[in-house]
């Protein structure tokens, strides 16, 4: 397939782009890989030293697991692919500390209070509230973060949104017909416009007799990451995961 990728908009966690020259099966493979196969870092096990707050250790641990952490795929391996065979070593896990005590006033524990051993890994956002502590309550714990995949646990799903749809194209003398269109539409000049700029109103963006058709091999992707990755890296890792598996299959069949 000869692809053509055109950026529409994006800043870090969000990206919207048009892919031309692809088949529905291929873009769906990329979408599924983004949701389920791109590994992200997340807290996996927790040793609680002190928890005098009002919630159980287990609930607290789940909340910690769901905090998105920035992911460094160069520095870490999935535990099952690591040379330690999943026993746990510096190549596949990192220690995270949390030590907050509410002395004489109510205190909220935020994701930003997590101290990660490795400066490359940090909470993707500092302001996620984890628990309220009343005076004299304290939480002291040590957690271990590991890479994992979205198909095994939702905390490892790096893409909070990954979706595509066919690109619409404006055609001359199409006889109108559409009043409202959402998403991105290719104009008669070949530019791609975001219909939300016109509140979706076709009459404001196009001439009266313009009609619309879908472009068979063009797809508009909208991707949003939870902060584990930049959106661009998320897409590229998804494509790499497909290519690695295809390579593995070809090698296995050949032997």
């Amino acid at each position: 397939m000869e692809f053509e990728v055109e950026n529409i908009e994006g800043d870090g966690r969000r990206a919207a782009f048009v892919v031309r020259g692809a088949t529905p099966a291929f873009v769906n493979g990329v979408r599924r890989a983004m949701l389920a196969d791109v590994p992200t870092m997340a807290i996996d096990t927790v040793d609680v030293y002190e928890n005098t707050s009002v919630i159980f250790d287990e609930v607290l641990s789940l909340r910690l697991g769901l905090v998105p952490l920035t992911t460094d795929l160069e520095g870490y391996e999935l535990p099952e692919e690591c040379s330690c065979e999943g026993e746990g070593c510096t190549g596949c896990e990192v220690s995270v500390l949390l030590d907050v005590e509410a002395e004489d006033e109510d205190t909220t524990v935020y994701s930003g209070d997590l101290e990660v051993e490795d400066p490359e890994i940090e909470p993707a956002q500092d302001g996620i509230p984890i628990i309220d502590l009343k005076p004299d309550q304290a939480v002291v714990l040590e957690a271990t973060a590991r890479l994992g995949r979205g198909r095994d646990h939702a905390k490892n799903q790096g893409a909070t949104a990954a979706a595509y749809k066919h690109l619409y194209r404006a055609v001359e003398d199409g006889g109108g017909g559409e009043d409202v269109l959402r998403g991105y539409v290719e104009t008669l000049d070949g530019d791609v416009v975001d219909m939300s700029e016109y509140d979706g109103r076709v009459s404001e963006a196009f001439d009266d007799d313009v009609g619309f058709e879908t472009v068979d091999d063009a797809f508009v992707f909208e991707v949003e990451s939870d902060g584990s990755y930049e959106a661009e890296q998320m897409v590229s890792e998804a494509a790499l995961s497909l290519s690695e598996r295809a390579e593995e299959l070809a090698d296995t069949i050949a032997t």
Partner: protein
Amino acid sequence: MNVTILSKEDSSVEVEIGGQDHTLLNVLKDSLLRLEDVEAATYDMNPEQSGSKTDPILYVETVDSDPLDAIEEAANNLQEDAESFEEEVRAAL
């Protein structure tokens, strides 16, 4: 990747592909169907009504070539496609 050939004839083959799901199989099927020699290609995620507890099975029929070669070629094409897509994405975004 655990690949088991369940049955094979001159122009058709049934292969069980371990640990994979629609993500790879559907793209692979698409890639197979775009080969000229391939007459039919499909896969079953839920063979024998197993509730997807077993691995998916890929079925391929070819006109006059070895169906295993077709799978290999399709997988190679898919790998190239995914790599070129990845390059395009990194260049554009």
